[in-house]
């Protein structure tokens, strides 16, 4: 944990039955150049199964870099990153791909839905690189779409849905393989306030049902609603507050 962090006492009292799905220890990420850019500096962060965590900070605070490092899309310059029990340093590029395909779900601000495909197939693509047959993936996709309240939109072309619906499709895609952790990068960034509110509620509901979710946002209002808030500034964690334990009502 960063020296400036003001972790609450609760943070230290993690119950033993909740396993750690994400463990960052003294992680830094430096981009070479003159002068070099220190995007993340000495971040310590443990996230346990079932948590809903917001990572909040202003532009340039290192939120996106941290998300990429957590999501194994980028490697840390130093420190250790463990996702779902795998030490990322021990894995080669192919194994990282495999880790992402089964253990990490992503939700992006821009949705990144494939044009020309139905909502069902877009969600089924969440398990595209696991080798599971399409017919089985479609069954799972149906369930995921039901979970996000889009059962009536399955056969619609995903990119022609409304913004809020598109983001819900993207969430269903992240959800389909029941990953250990879902990383959402500014999930409400491209939505109007009503749709944004729906998406935040959906995230809360999914968490209540047991899904571990990390939401990156610059919106303090959203960040403050979640049970745990990690504040970033200049690449370092300045605050890590756990308002409630996972599973406890807020």
């Amino acid at each position, binding site marked *: 944990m960063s020296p400036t962090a003001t972790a609450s006492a609760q943070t230290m009292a993690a119950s033993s039955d909740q396993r750690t799905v994400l463990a960052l220890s003294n992680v830094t990420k430096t981009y070479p150049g003159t002068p070099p850019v220190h995007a993340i500096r000495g971040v310590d962060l443990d996230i346990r199964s079932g948590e809903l965590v917001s990572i909040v900070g202003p532009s340039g605070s290192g939120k*996106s870099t941290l998300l*990429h490092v957590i*999501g194994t*899309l*980028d490697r840390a310059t130093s420190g250790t990153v*463990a996702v*779902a*029990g*795998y*030490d990322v340093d*021990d*894995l080669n*590029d*192919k*194994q990282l*791909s*495999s*880790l*992402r*395909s*089964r253990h*990490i779900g*992503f939700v*992006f601000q*821009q949705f*990144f839905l*494939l*044009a*020309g*495909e139905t909502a069902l197939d877009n969600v089924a*693509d*969440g398990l*595209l*690189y*696991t*080798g599971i*047959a*399409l017919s089985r993936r479609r069954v799972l996709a149906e369930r995921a779409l039901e979970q996000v309240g889009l059962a009536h939109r399955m056969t619609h072309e995903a990119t022609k849905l409304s913004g809020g619906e598109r983001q819900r499709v993207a969430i269903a895609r992240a959800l389909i393989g029941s990953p250990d952790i879902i990383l959402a990068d500014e999930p409400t960034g491209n939505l109007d306030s009503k749709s944004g509110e729906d998406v935040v509620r959906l995230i809360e509901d999914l968490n209540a049902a047991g899904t571990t979710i990390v939401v990156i946002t610059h919106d303090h209002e959203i960040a403050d609603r979640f049970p745990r808030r990690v504040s970033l500034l200049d690449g370092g964690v300045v605050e890590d507050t756990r308002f409630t334990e996972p599973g406890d009502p807020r």
Partner: protein
Amino acid sequence: MNVSLEPSRLAPADMMRASLIGLRTRRLRSILSGLGIVIGIAAMVGVLGLSESSKSDLLAQLDQLGTNMLRIEAGSGIGIGTGELPEDSTAMVSRVGPVEQVASISETEANVYRTDLVPEGQTGGITVKAVDANLLATLQGQMASGIFLDEAVSDLPVVVLGSVAAERLGVNDGTDGTVVWLGGEWFSVVGVMETLDLSPDLDRAALVSYSTAETFLGHEGVPSTIYVRSNPDDIDAVRSVLPATVNPESPDEVEVTRPSDALEAKEAADQAFTNLLLGLGAVALLVGGVGIANVMVISVLERRGEIGLRRALGATKGHISIQFLGESLILATLGGLGGVALGGAVTAAYAWSQGWEVLIPAVAIVGGMGAALIIGVIAGLYPAMRAARVSPTEALRTL
């Protein structure tokens, strides 16, 4: 620490689906870039198909006319011969073992006109030749109308016209009793021949029998040309003994040729032209390939977001490059199929219009598809590698 991690996998059917996405969502662009391959392959298949069809026609013609015919002429040129063969040469040639048929032709001085009112100078380039009655059979020629010269009419003032000669004299039919003014006498036209591929000089001639020539034109029957039909297996042996047989004193003054050689030379010339057109087809194909590569590179740039998403979903670099390579291959394969179909259709239509047998060689189809696939791989390789190299974090930041 957990170590069992199943590798990312992409089933072949899913790979196909992934490769089709770009083509499905950018249809017009895909069609236009595939068109280059269609044109290139169609050109190659068409050229090979047409060349094969026309060759087959030529071979059929050669087969029909036979390659076992030889033509003997008196040597021409300064200091060589008199332009005439010895009087008894026809009889001597017929005594050569493998020779099956012999027919001679003798040039006369006479000219032929449509009527006696036509000025003497307007001969129309038509020569009058005295010929043996078996000439048509020896040449394996056909009559367009009427009959050829035979014993029954051998002493009468009758004439048979070559196809060009008949046209120039305005004689359409050899059976309606048309008369022509030949050597100062009225001659009845009894037949018109079809075009003779192996002896085009006879197309421009009016033919009379030897005895008619002697009776009405005062022509002495010294042959100038002899056609010989021999056993095909012995054609070379016959050819080598003919000069000495015809003129034992001066075999050098006898020229022996094989008319079918001219058709074979025509075939060789056609082949050279075919090669040139094939080269043009290859250039079109190359341009098509560059078109596909260009479209693929643009596609990689445009679809960085999709590449980033796929990497986030667990795609390896290999999966990404295979997706784009597959896209290029599908495009080229469809282009190749279209090209083979178009080339085949053009060949069939043209061959049909020419009355040729439609022949599209398997090598054109297999080669065309093979060329399309190779072009697809080459055109897709660089864009695929580029797509695989796209950093997922950069790609996800793009939009």
